[in-house]
């Protein structure tokens, strides 16, 4: 190696303003990493996303507990359901296993929760 100075080019890519998102409903588990079929979302679309207002309390509300498909998620949410039953019995919980795999969309369930649910607990990613 020499002590003379070198100029080198940057090897990194440039931000593209494009993001990956969950796979389509029914998509194969491996599809999430297939650029040909992986759904994407552009910067201008996510720029306007807003969080929902929170509830005053969970009393007499319906809380969906949605297992997203990672190992152990359903059992964990059963424990969460038991906790609500024992500590906040006025909360109605609905335990649901999301269709497909952990990376795919479940639009019918989102519509159902939008109509029948007041809040949702998703878990457990890992």
């Amino acid at each position, binding site marked *: 190696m020499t002590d003379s100075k070198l*100029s080198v080019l*940057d090897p990194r890519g440039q931000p593209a303003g494009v993001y990956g998102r969950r796979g389509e409903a029914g998509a194969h588990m491996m599809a999430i*990493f297939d650029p040909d079929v992986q759904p994407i979302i552009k910067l201008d679309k*996510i720029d306007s996303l807003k969080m*929902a207002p929170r509830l005053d309390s969970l009393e007499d509300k319906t809380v969906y507990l949605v297992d997203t498909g990672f*190992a152990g998620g359903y*059992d964990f949410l059963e424990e969460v359901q038991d906790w609500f039953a024992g500590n906040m019995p006025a909360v109605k919980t609905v335990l649901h296993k999301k269709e497909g795999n952990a990376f795919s969309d479940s639009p019918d369930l989102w519509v159902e929760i939008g109509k029948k649910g007041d809040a949702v607990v*998703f*878990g457990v990613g890992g």
Partner: protein
Amino acid sequence: MEDEFGVPTAPIVTARFADYVLRDGRTRGMNLRWTFPPYPVGWVSRETLHGYVQGNDPISGAPIMEEIVAALTQPLTDTEKNSKITRPPRRPRLLGEETESNLHRFFLENAWTDGLPIILPTEERVAEMLTGTDHDPQEVVGMMTVTTHEEMLEYTVERVAVNAVMAGARPEHLPVILAIASSQHPSIPSSTGSYGSMVVVNGPVRHEIGMNSGGGAMGPFNYANSVIGRAWTLMSINFGDARLGDTFMATIGNGSSFTNQCCAENEERSDWEPFHVRNGFAPGESTVSLFRGWNVLTLGVGGAKNILGRMKELQFTGAFTFVLDPLVAAGLKKDEGYDNPRQLSEWLAKELNSPRVKPENINFVVVGGETNPIWETTDYVYYKTVSVDKWIPKDGIRRDERPLRMPTGVTCADDSCGIN
């Protein structure tokens, strides 16, 4: 649910992924109210999970269930109502001048390499690499990510050439590397399960750049195989933004990721049509085919029944790619009547009788030096085949006056071995 349906959510992810999802919130401008139980959650006893739910979030220190209830009921803060997207900065073309040793340290300490020594991408070297294609250096080739949680990064022909230089490649290799880049597939997508990848080259370019399709083709014995395969992972690191523990979460990692089992198909010694021809390309067209999965079992022997037996042991993804020595393909054709691999795929899928396994997801490539009739089993998914030809200069592959070639092994071109 939050934006489209107006329903408050309380997402839960294990504490190991806290940084990952918090960064996801920043990059998308929605900082969800996460709860982080201890980990792992999968494959642990019910008593352990009970303890998690009754216990505290190890990141915040708050009781798990209080945190979940608060996530759904505490009013949004002004920051949450008006959150901003955090974007990575645009990259410069040139880095500041430094000494060679400092630059090597800089690339390593920024994790822009695979840990092995690189060739520094000086302007002169990159300019020389760019003679390997006629394409404009500023032409955008594609965009890539190793995770769905980060903004994708876009890359030009020149930035592909930078990574090709770093990998130790020569201009003759650039068209194949550009073809891989154009697929936009990272070789190392982020999965805790530690993906491995494979790239198989078909067509005339194999010989023009001296690739190995014969003995030890997947091993460290061929310059082109090694640097092309390495360039894919360097591009996956630098364009796919693979950062260990941040965007890349493989719990063990995969030793094949250094060069991605890069090889050429042994078309000349195969009794079957070349892989790219079976997938709609012309025999005279050069291509790269990309595969990915988790499991590789190197030693397989025997015919179709033994292949079926191995498949029964390994049905994780529902996909299989078998790498067959030419002697295996010859035996399957001569002794068992499989004139083409499609017949074999259909027979195997029928015999396996699993709803997860379809004939089109059972693939075969022929690689090897006819030392013994051995096959390799993988659960790799075949993703796609990409043409190399569009990246080759109109005057042909730009070879060095005296191309660099490693010694080749004994071949069976004289028909002294093989099943005839």
